[in-house]
């Protein structure tokens, strides 16, 4: 009983209740699946007509296409959905009253965070049957399917928590949304750019020092790129940039420090999520314990 009471989140329950009352959710879901399904069917139709045969490769292509499409949608909508949850309460002048109730800051932040993401999580889960169709044609492994959905979930939760953090920090929702998109862009472009620069510099140094080509390159630029959502998305399909990892793995002599970029990404996003939420919880308290004395 006590545990249930501890876990029960009135903010989350209330948002669900209000949202489920309108038919909008049902309409959006239907429309979303129709559009996504339409795209998949068109793709299948065109490819099969063109190639005149069934091929696991086609299935693989559709799967990747679908995944990238959904991933793009997640990145596009998550900031908009989450970056107004706290600042919106502040603008509506409902936050101060909420903060004088028994509701803890933790419950408030977690409730708002999950409520704002739950519809999108539901949408993505609702698209699973579509993947099922593709899956039947072969060409992808169940593990890849699970990995793609893991990537979705972790990215939504992580990016969402950054949105909540900006929403807590900023007075205005507009500013918070812009900052969250800016973060997403700077983060994605930044990790990639730093990776490229690092690789170039290492190459340059090696040429200058005439190092033997047999000596392996340092691994840290690849760790850096492992934090990049697009690179990791491609990596799930064994495409893209982590060639050394794939080669070594295929050869069966993967050194322990060459962590799978996928897991590195997951780990980083889990830490990002926890960090952003903890900071939001700390910041939303109107009267808080001092970390340092003034």
């Amino acid at each position: 009983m006590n545990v249930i009471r501890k876990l029960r989140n009135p903010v989350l329950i209330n948002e669900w209740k209000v949202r489920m009352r309108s038919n909008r959710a049902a309409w959006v879901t239907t429309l979303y699946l129709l559009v996504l399904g339409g795209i998949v069917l068109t793709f299948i139709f065109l490819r099969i007509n063109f190639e005149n045969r069934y091929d696991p490769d086609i299935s693989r292509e559709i799967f990747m296409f679908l995944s990238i499409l959904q991933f793009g949608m997640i990145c596009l909508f998550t900031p908009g959905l989450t970056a107004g949850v706290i600042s919106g309460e502040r603008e509506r002048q409902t936050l101060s009253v909420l903060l004088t109730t028994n509701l803890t800051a933790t419950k408030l932040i977690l409730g708002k965070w999950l409520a704002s993401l739950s519809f999108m999580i539901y949408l993505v889960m609702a698209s699973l049957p579509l993947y099922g169709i593709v899956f039947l044609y072969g060409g992808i492994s169940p593990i890849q399917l699970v990995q793609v959905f893991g990537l979705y979930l972790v990215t939504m939760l992580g990016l969402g928590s950054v949105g909540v953090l900006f929403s807590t920090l900023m007075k205005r929702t507009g500013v918070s949304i812009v900052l969250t998109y800016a973060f997403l862009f700077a983060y994605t472009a930044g990790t990639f750019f730093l990776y490229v620069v690092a690789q170039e510099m290492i190459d340059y140094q090696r040429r200058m020092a005439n190092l033997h080509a047999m000596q392996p390159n340092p691994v840290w630029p690849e760790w850096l790129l492992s934090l990049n959502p697009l690179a990791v998305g491609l990596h799930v399909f064994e495409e893209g940039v982590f060639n050394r990892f794939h080669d070594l793995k295929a050869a069966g002599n993967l050194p322990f420090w060459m962590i799978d970029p996928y897991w590195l990404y997951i780990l980083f996003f889990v830490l990002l999520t926890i960090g952003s939420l903890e900071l939001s919880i700390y910041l939303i308290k109107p009267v808080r314990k001092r970390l340092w004395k003034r």
Partner: protein
Amino acid sequence: MIQIDNLRKRYGKMEALKGLSLEIGKGQVFGFVGPNGAGKSTTMLILATLLEPTSGKAYVGGFDVVKQPREVRRLIGYMPDFFGVYDNVTAEEYLDFYASNYDISPQERKEIIPQLLELVSLSHKRDAFVDSLSRGMKQRLGLARSLVHNPDVLILDEPASGLDPRARIELREILKELRNMGKTIIISSHILPELAEMCDVIGIIEGGELVATGSVDEIYAKMQGYKVLKVRMLDQWEEATALLTRHDKVASVKKDGNVLLADFTGTDQEQAALLQQLAAAGLPMASFAEGEGNLEEIFLEIVKGAGS
């Protein structure tokens, strides 16, 4: 029930509260009156655990508002001067949501919510969406909201402002009922007559300082008898200040350039005697005059509601 000790709050360079102290007993209705910008909302925010004071202490039910905010929150119902409501939510759901935030069980909520709606005369609006309610009704719903967990203390920041006269009367009736229920209430306004009838004690705040407290009658008497004596001195201001301060009817003395300003509540005879005393002490007085007190201006403002 409420105790405030030497409370200060600075916003940047602006000092909104300059060492406020006051005490409110259990079951008392305390009217917090002062012109706009006097520091009423700031004080109430601190009591509601929403704002950290720069220095000083405040206690509700013996709990420190800074160190024990959770305990304080259980005791208080707070209604801010401006608050919003959620759209898409009915009056009943609105109260239900806040009750659930106080960990009140669904069965219990089903019992108290009709009672609360009854108390604020909104039973007929149970299923109406809150953003469709009139301002007066929203205000009453807000009051019901602050009562969901049956708090001992109510902190109401200008609940009557922006209401038409009828809505004000309705609000006053509800507040009387709450007073009869034994709640400790601190209620603010920038107009004294608005509160006069229903408060046990009135505190007048101006410029972040409590300038007078007492029953309504005492306040009226105190403020009408006020004068400021202006004594221009050539030298020996300290001695003159000491002499003035010793007098019973001098509330406070301030120095402005070479002029001493003394808040004086005495009669003309007492004033004459005071002048003689100053002269007899051989202090170098250049002039002695009486002027309108600062309090008098405040008084006019809050009684007539000027500047609102």
